[in-house]
């Protein structure tokens, strides 16, 4: 890495995240003026967006080649009061909490109190959502049965398709003009609505052009003052580039990166979209420019690498916007889930790995920063050499890249009815979510606490933590004669809560579609323009709503324990078991030991438990899959936790698998922490009994100590594990390469381990930034070092 990149990288890492009211104040000013009185909601949103980009501060950092910040400076993070309005207490927590803090200065506090809260209180979509939810939903939500993604952040969950690298915003505007011309007021009852949406999209397109123009002007101005002749020339070139893109389609790598970056800024300024945004299959999307640059001698591959590294820094400069309410204390990361995809297959099904894929791996290895995150797509056609190169980066213990199965992703997409071309152009984003890039809105609606549903079933509809009855009366569990009776009751309870969740989703989706449309995002995702429909209203070619199951390992082991210990071997009856759970195994050490050690556990390739896991999976799948959403698509499932397995655990008392009260649940499709005693092949076999292809993504975490991967032999063994898992349709696997000792040391001397990045669950984070319980959990995770 050269001096320039080193400096930019340092600056980015050292930038202290702060809260910036720039966006909130501009937005409030805009809505308080009467500018929106005579316009439709989408047009008003577009005008507000334009107002933001016209008036926000322009920031070009010293030495950078790709320009544009979301806030007034790096790591100055905006708020989105129209979505959720931070209270004074939230600001206090953000400012003082020890992890993932955001500094909040006195002026920000004062303005929040005087300007932001008074205007947005009761107007934010968060307030509206809670107002519109019925009692059952609120009770289930409060009990921790599910979370709601859309109460704090906007439905984004999508990724740029290749087409945006070949179109300028002038092209989008032409398409809008065509669409407007084609509106059929005679026959289409929605024609007027479409007209308003298209007008809004056009305004949004102009808005980003204004931003680019302002950057161009700023660069020119800086160039004039610049003493250093080399930098002067660079700034002049930046001015030219910002003058050309994103209005026109890019012609070079530099233009392509700047083009994308303006788009990225547009998306994350318009709304605080989930998973920010993402350039998707970067090695594929950039390859034509890369090839042309090299052929024409415009750039050497070293220079292209430098541009890419400057591009990387831009992502790292934008921490995830902080949340409000309880989650402000708990939120565990600055990362905003932008996941760069490398490898995979081309549109014609052939292997897609190219020289740029390798160059990008070099970039990832050298940068070692939190954002963007990265992954490699491995198909059966991918050369082992590429996978090995990626694993050598995994070995450095920085948690990137994670490894995905292209063949599984394609089959998942095909199963959902996508075309083969759209499927091959797809990939995974966020943590592990499958999507048709550039064509699909695939919204994660919330995590679902499977284990909590079992707990409520065991207590006949009562939440044993609060004593409140919130579920169905599915029968007194001490009277159940067989495991099947218990499972039937669980099934009823599960469907009851899934119904509540889906009903909520359908209302919340409508609120977003009508109150907070996203005209800028709609420009980017096919076929919003063609359909004259907003991204949040089903304008995309494909519209999927996910419910994410959490704690598969814990619920499986709990059911396995009940089946084995209560119904079959009768070592304890249900009444006694419930008492033991209620008392957190107080004075029941011997029982507890049996539950931990002498009860079949998921993750050991043991059909007894794995069959139960499949039963749970199927019920969850059946209760969700295929149920319509309000956007012409349907609901589907995936299995990933991010860090919610900690929160979900904190609302559940002791469980029959021996888990003590309020301890974390298992995460993703991984076994319960420490219960996989038969090694990684057994874990992989167990996990492969899940029908991954029926999901939109699953997450499997494996931890290896560095010694394991010290030599090429270790790398090969890991490669075989991955190939085997993928042959059995596994969706994703990721590796933590750290020793428990190192982690313990890091826990005790955080100041000495500031560089230690670990992969948590679909993303990487600095270990010292993690909460203590998450730190402990990572330390405890079974180490598969083979001695």
């Amino acid at each position: 890495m050269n001096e320039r990149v080193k400096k930019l990288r340092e600056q980015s890492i050292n930038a202290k995240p702060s809260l910036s009211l720039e966006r909130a104040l501009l937005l409030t000013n805009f809505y308080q003026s009467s500018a929106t009185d005579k316009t439709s909601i989408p047009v008003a949103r577009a005008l507000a967006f334009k107002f933001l980009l016209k008036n926000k501060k322009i920031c070009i950092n010293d030495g950078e080649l790709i320009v544009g910040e979301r806030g007034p400076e790096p790591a100055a993070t905006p708020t989105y009061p129209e979505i959720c309005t931070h209270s004074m207490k939230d600001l206090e927590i953000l400012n003082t909490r020890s992890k993932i803090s955001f500094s909040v200065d006195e002026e920000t506090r004062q303005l929040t109190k005087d300007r932001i809260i008074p205007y947005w209180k009761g107007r934010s979509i968060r307030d509206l959502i809670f107002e519109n939810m019925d009692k059952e939903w609120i009770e289930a939500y409060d009990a921790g049965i599910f979370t709601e993604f859309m109460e704090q952040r906007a439905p984004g969950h999508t990724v740029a398709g290749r087409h945006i690298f070949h179109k300028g915003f002038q092209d989008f505007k032409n398409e809008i003009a065509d669409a407007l011309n084609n509106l059929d007021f005679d026959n289409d009852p929605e024609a007027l609505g479409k007209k308003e949406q298209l007008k809004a999209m056009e305004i949004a397109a102009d808005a980003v052009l204004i931003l680019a123009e302002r950057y161009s002007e700023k660069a020119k101005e800086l160039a004039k003052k610049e003493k250093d002749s080399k930098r002067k020339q660079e700034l002049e070139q930046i001015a030219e580039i910002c003058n050309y893109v994103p209005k026109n389609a890019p012609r070079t790598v530099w233009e392509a990166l700047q083009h994308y970056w303006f788009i990225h800024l547009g998306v994350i300024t318009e709304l605080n979209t989930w998973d920010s945004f993402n350039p998707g299959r970067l090695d594929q999307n950039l390859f034509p420019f890369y090839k042309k640059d090299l052929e024409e001698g415009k750039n050497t591959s070293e220079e292209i690498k430098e541009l890419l590294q400057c591009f990387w820094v831009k992502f790292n400069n934008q921490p995830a916007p902080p949340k409000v309410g309880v989650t402000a204390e708990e939120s565990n990361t600055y990362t905003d889930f932008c996941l760069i995809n490398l490898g995979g297959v081309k549109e014609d099904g052939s292997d897609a790995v190219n020289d740029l894929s390798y160059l990008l791996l070099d970039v990832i290895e050298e940068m070692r920063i939190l954002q963007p995150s990265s992954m490699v797509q491995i198909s059966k056609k991918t050369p082992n050499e590429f996978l090995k190169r990626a694993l050598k980066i995994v070995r450095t213990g920085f948690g990137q890249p994670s490894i995905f199965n292209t063949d599984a992703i394609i089959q998942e997409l095909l199963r959902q009815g996508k075309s083969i071309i759209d499927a091959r152009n797809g990939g995974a984003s966020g943590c592990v979510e499958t999507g048709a890039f550039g064509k699909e809105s695939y919204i994660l609606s919330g995590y679902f606490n499977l284990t909590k549903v079992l707990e409520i079933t065991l207590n006949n509809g009562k939440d044993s933590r609060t004593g409140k009855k919130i579920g169905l009366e599915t029968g007194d569990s001490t009277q159940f004669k067989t495991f099947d009776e218990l499972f039937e009751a669980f099934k009823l309870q599960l469907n009851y809560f899934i119904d509540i969740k889906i009903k909520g989703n359908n209302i919340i989706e409508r609120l977003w579609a009508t109150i907070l449309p996203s005209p800028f995002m709609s420009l980017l995702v096919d076929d919003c323009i063609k359909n004259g429909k907003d991204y949040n209203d089903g304008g995309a070619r494909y519209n999927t709503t996910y419910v994410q199951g959490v704690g598969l390992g814990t619920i499986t082991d709990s059911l396995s324990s009940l089946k084995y210990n209560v119904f079959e071997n009768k070592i304890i009856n249900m009444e006694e078991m419930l008492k033991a759970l209620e008392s957190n195994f107080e004075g029941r050490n011997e029982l507890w030991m049996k539950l931990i050690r002498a009860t079949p556990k998921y993750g050991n390739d043991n059909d007894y438990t794995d069959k139960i896991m499949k039963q749970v999976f199927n019920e969850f799948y059946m209760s969700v899959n295929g149920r319509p959403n309000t956007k012409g698509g349907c609901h589907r499932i995936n299995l990933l936790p991010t860090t919610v397995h900690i929160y979900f655990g904190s609302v559940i008392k002791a469980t029959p698998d021996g888990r003590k009260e309020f301890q974390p649940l298992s995460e993703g499709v991984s076994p319960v922490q420490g219960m996989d005693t038969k090694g990684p092949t057994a874990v992989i076999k167990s996990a492969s009994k899940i029908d991954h292809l029926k999901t939109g993504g699953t997450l499997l975490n494996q931890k290896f100590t560095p010694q394991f991967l010290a030599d090429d032999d270790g790398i090969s063994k890991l490669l075989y594990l991955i190939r085997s898992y993928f042959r059995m349709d596994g969706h994703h696997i990721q590796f933590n390469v750290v020793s428990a000792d190192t982690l313990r040391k890091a826990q005790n001397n955080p100041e000495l381990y500031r560089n230690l990045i670990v992969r948590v669950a679909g993303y990487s984070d600095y270990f010292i930034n993690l909460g203590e319980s998450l730190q402990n959990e990572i330390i405890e995770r079974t180490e598969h070092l083979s001695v």
Partner: protein
Amino acid sequence: MKETRGLIFDIKRFAIHDGPGIRTTIFFKGCPLECWWCANPEGQKKEHEEIISPFQLEENDECIKDVIGDEISSQEVIDEILKDRVFYEESNGGVTFSGGEPLMQPEFLQSLLALSKQEGIHTILDTSGYGTQSIFEKIVDDVDLFLYDLKLLDMEKHLKYTGVSTDLILQNLSFLVDKKQNIIIRIPIVPGITDSSANLNQIGKYLSELKSIIRVDILPYNKMSEAKYNRLGKTYKLSNIAPPSDERMSEIKNQLELFGLKVKIGG
């Protein structure tokens, strides 16, 4: 093949130091030797035995005892082996029979080898070589690769440190060489015991005259098993010996390579 039963003390999946690829290793219980450095002391006795569990309920509680040794049928073992077939196929791995000493349960071993071969699974026998030649005659066709231990060539020392003499071991090795078997020799490097220049030269010279030795693996002694000795109530005689350094291992590698052998550090 008739159903046989045997006594094992562990089945280890994802064994990656017991031959090529990803393997499953079956640990037979019972060994005619009693090497001072043995890493699997729980595999020596050919009956069930008790071991103190590393797991304890609470600090002051009595310790929990586990029983070591599983009586198991050859079919059950094969079922376990087959669970990882996909990994063997992807990695060119297979099954390794180790111990203890598999040769001590000849019928069980024979049946497992034959069943594995029927399933097309690559087989390795990890052996001290201490058994009668007639056993080797029976199994030799079903073993794809031998991991064959050589410790000390000096008869007296061998007797002292392992409890048996070298006769059978050397005879069997030359039998296998004559049969043109694939053999990897494994030498445990225990400082002060097996790593003397004299011993290594003797072994080097001896091996250089044998054909069909694919490679020599030198395995650095480690202290990982010390706790197990205590938990078994056995005395660990090597408490004062430190594991060989990396430099020492390279020296030994060089020394053996002078005999024209292919040498690898570690298994």
